[in-house]
């Protein structure tokens, strides 16, 4: 069961931002899928990359590690990394790991988009 159970869709929102719609699991095995989607969405020089966690089924510490890697890349590219659609549980995990200090957390897509510009 080492294959990725993640599907990602990349939505470009104008020139300012892109949204990565996550469906499934974020674990250490999601690296390739997530990085490819990131490259696709962020490559066009957006100011912010927004992660849509509405379809997140499961995330573990490996997945959190992966988000840190994404965060490193976004920081280097001087892009904001934002997120929305996290359940209460995963929001708590973001807080515990203090990921929420580096990734802006928003309740809805509209809130996240508003913060992107």
């Amino acid at each position, binding site marked *: 069961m080492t294959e990725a159970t993640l599907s990602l869709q990349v939505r470009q929102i104008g020139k300012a931002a892109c949204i990565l719609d996550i469906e499934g699991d974020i674990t250490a*095995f999601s690296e390739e899928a997530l990085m490819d989607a990131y490259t696709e969405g962020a490559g066009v020089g957006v100011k912010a990359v927004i992660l849509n966690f509405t379809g997140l089924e499961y995330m573990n510490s490996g997945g*959190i590690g992966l988000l840190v890697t994404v965060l490193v890349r976004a920081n280097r590219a001087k892009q904001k990394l934002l997120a929305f659609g996290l359940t209460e549980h995963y929001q708590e995990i973001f807080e515990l790991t203090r*990921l929420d200090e580096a990734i802006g957390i928003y309740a809805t897509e509209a809130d996240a988009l508003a913060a992107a510009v």
Partner: protein
Amino acid sequence: MTAIAQTWRKVTGKGQAAEAVAAPAEATVETTTIETPAVEIAPNDPLVAFLQSAGGAVDVEALELESPGVTALREAGVALVVPLISGGELVGTLNLGPRLSDQQYSTDDKRLLDGLAAQAAPALQVAELVQKQAAEARSRERIEQELKVATLIQQNFLPRVLPDLPGWEVAAYYQPAREVGGDFYDLFELPDGQVAVIIGDVTDKGVPAAMVMAAARSLLRASGQRVISPGEVLERVNDLLCPDIPEKMFVTCLYLVVDPSTGYVRYANAGHNLPYARTADGSMELRAKGMPLGLLPGMKYEEHEAMMSPGDGLLLYSDGVTEAHGAEREMFGTPRLVDHVADPTSGDLIDGLLTQLQRFTGNDWEQEDDITLVTLTRTLGSGVQNGLVSGIDVRFTLPSETGNEREAMQRVLDAIAPLGLEERRVERLGTAVSEAAMNAIEHGNQGRAEIPVEVEVVTAGGELIVRIRDVGDGPQATEVESPDIEAKLAGLQKPRGWGLFLIKNMVDEIRVIDADGRHTVELVLQLEGGDGDGSNGA
């Protein structure tokens, strides 16, 4: 020289009596003032042999023998020595000073004195014998009395009833030797619901050993109520015992703290015989080192852990068992005891062992030392017995393949569904289970699919416990690393280390147990009286 010297002193007075007989009646007042000092004659003094064969009163003046005894007699002013012979043995002498009339003792005087000596000697010997026997009887009586006192102290300080532990069978056997040794054992509940189990042995026997045993037992009880850590309890008791314990005495002691709801055992040892557990895989030694109590202050006691699964039994014992001698003078020994523990067909841990011991020592064996046995057996299915609401006891194993942590999580969540826990707590437990299972798969079992990860879900003692067990071969994260996003961004902190941190924050308590070559992580949720929040805060 004792017998003669003592006799001499006793006879001195009689010498004066003899003098009184010989002296005129009007001189009574004066005779009482005359004292012949005690004279000691060494048993190897030639005078002894001489007197023994003299055949009657001997004139000291006329003695042609030179010896320390003769000199002593002369210095003491003894004029006449009358040997007291009984059964051909010199039992004493009558020593007489010079006659008050300044005349020599006459032949009649001597005959009279010889007659008196012949009567006195056997009487004296009989009196001495009676005295000696009386002294022996008194000493025997004192020893018996002491034995009674020692037994009484001992029995008063052993638990009269053993605590009733649901899901456990607790038994103890104590048989003092005729000369009571210093064995003791104790079981008592701790304020947090765990149970302290103690076995010990004081060197020496009788009342002194019993007194030290009583003191040690009280100190152990008092410290046990204040501190849970077995190592710390022994450390305290050792420091308290050291200043007061008589020289050359010490106490061996094994101290265990058992969590009856989980089977988790913590223990430390102060030089006592190591206990053995009977498990499904044979016998297991619970090893721990430490100096006996009361020898040196400031000792540290290493603490170890073990896990008792349902069906496991633990035997604590004193050296009265292993050092019992058989008819051929060989010792029963530890290997025989270990074999008994390892073999479930050899009978009950206590009864079976006693049967073997009896077979080994034979029927006319006089028990050399106290024998103490204490057993703790976790009954099968005990995980359920003391559960609450609807008891849960679900166990399964999964191959160590990455991804199976999700399977573990799902099966645990299915298992706990009947508890109807709050959704948030269920989600948190799910994350904790998957993280712990992932650690077990990837680190503990090194991703070797053929080695299973064992998962147990039980309710016991007001807790929901999820145990995740691996073989513990790989490096285990033991320290919880707090996330530092800056450090992680700078590549200084590996994201990996967050697993344990997450687990810790997702459940009410986490216990990590390394025992029996296996690594177990216990995730605990309080079911009753829990904070209902499940978060330790961050």
